[in-house]
């Protein structure tokens, strides 16, 4: 598996899983309060995210590559280990699995309970919920697209991967008109956590002066090593039984 393939996969899967969560938020409010305002919120959030990527992506080219790899690698390590830690805790039965149908029910109940908020033809409740949901979920994707693309000098690959994932989720949402509960979100998050941590180790290592044996070929080896560590930790957790804490599904 080449570095570009892993790069594409990481951006695509991260965007896919975050957009599935954003879609649930938008669907919950749209089904109850109408579609015009939430769709305007989605458009505004996507616009803000596009500006972030368009400004920060090319700007990273001005940073020396070694400095960039150290900083981005360290951030990706911190960020990736958060994803991986949560994924292991979920897979090991120590944390509740993320459930899109439950999230949809909660979002729908909140949208029904909220009072009227229409002003100048826009339902500001729907607009704000959709805008905030897409922006917050999308920020992680923008971070991954910019850092992965900028550090490997392949912003085109990560932007295309994220855009493709966005199109796939939007198309599925339009067809199904229900939360994409059958997407194996928790498994995808596990894989994305592994990929983020792998690139974090690789780039932060280069930034600190490490010469990786085999250069880019070290990437799949690091990925395999981390996958084994994560699998062992998951198995260790599964051997125990934990009472799940209420509200631990976040």
């Amino acid at each position, binding site marked *: 598996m080449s570095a570009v393939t892993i790069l594409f996969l990481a951006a695509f899967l991260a965007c896919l899983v975050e957009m599935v969560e954003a879609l649930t938020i938008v669907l919950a409010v749209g089904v109850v309060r109408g579609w015009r305002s939430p769709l305007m919120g989605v458009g505004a959030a996507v616009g803000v995210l596009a500006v972030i990527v368009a400004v920060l992506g090319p700007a990273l080219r001005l940073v020396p590559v070694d400095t960039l790899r*150290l900083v981005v690698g*360290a*951030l990706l*390590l*911190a*960020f990736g*280990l*958060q994803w*991986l*830690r*949560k994924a*292991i*805790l979920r897979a*090991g039965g*120590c944390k509740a699995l993320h459930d899109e149908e439950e999230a949809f029910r909660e979002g729908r109940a909140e949208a029904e309970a909220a009072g009227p908020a229409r002003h100048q033809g826009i339902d500001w409740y729907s607009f704000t919920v959709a805008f905030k949901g897409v922006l917050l979920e999308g*920020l*992680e994707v923008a971070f991954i697209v910019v850092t992965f693309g900028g550090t490997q000098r392949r912003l085109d690959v990560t932007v295309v991967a994220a855009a493709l994932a966005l199109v796939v989720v939007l198309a599925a949402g339009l067809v199904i008109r229900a939360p994409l509960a059958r997407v194996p979100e928790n498994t995808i998050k596990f894989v994305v956590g592994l990929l983020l*941590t792998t690139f974090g*180790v690789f780039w*932060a*290592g280069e*930034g*600190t*002066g*490490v*010469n*990786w*044996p085999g250069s880019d070929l*070290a990437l799949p080896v*690091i990925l395999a*090593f*981390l996958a084994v*560590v*994560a699998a062992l*930790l998951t198995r*260790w*957790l599964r051997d*125990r039984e*934990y009472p799940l804490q209420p509200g631990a599904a976040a």
Partner: protein
Amino acid sequence: MRQLSAFAAFWWDFVVGDDWRVAAGIVGALGLSALVAHHGFPAWWVLPAAVALVLAGSIARVVRARR
């Protein structure tokens, strides 16, 4: 002031997350990796080993807290 602290809390949660010791462990590992590489020794093993240890330590703390 409240908005500023909310902004700082957002970025802390975004980068550091639930367990600050993981972030602290990463910073320590980066320092060790740079030190080993600077002295001319092979340093490729430092970060993968550190990540495995930091991750296992964080998971173990969750397990201990549940007991």
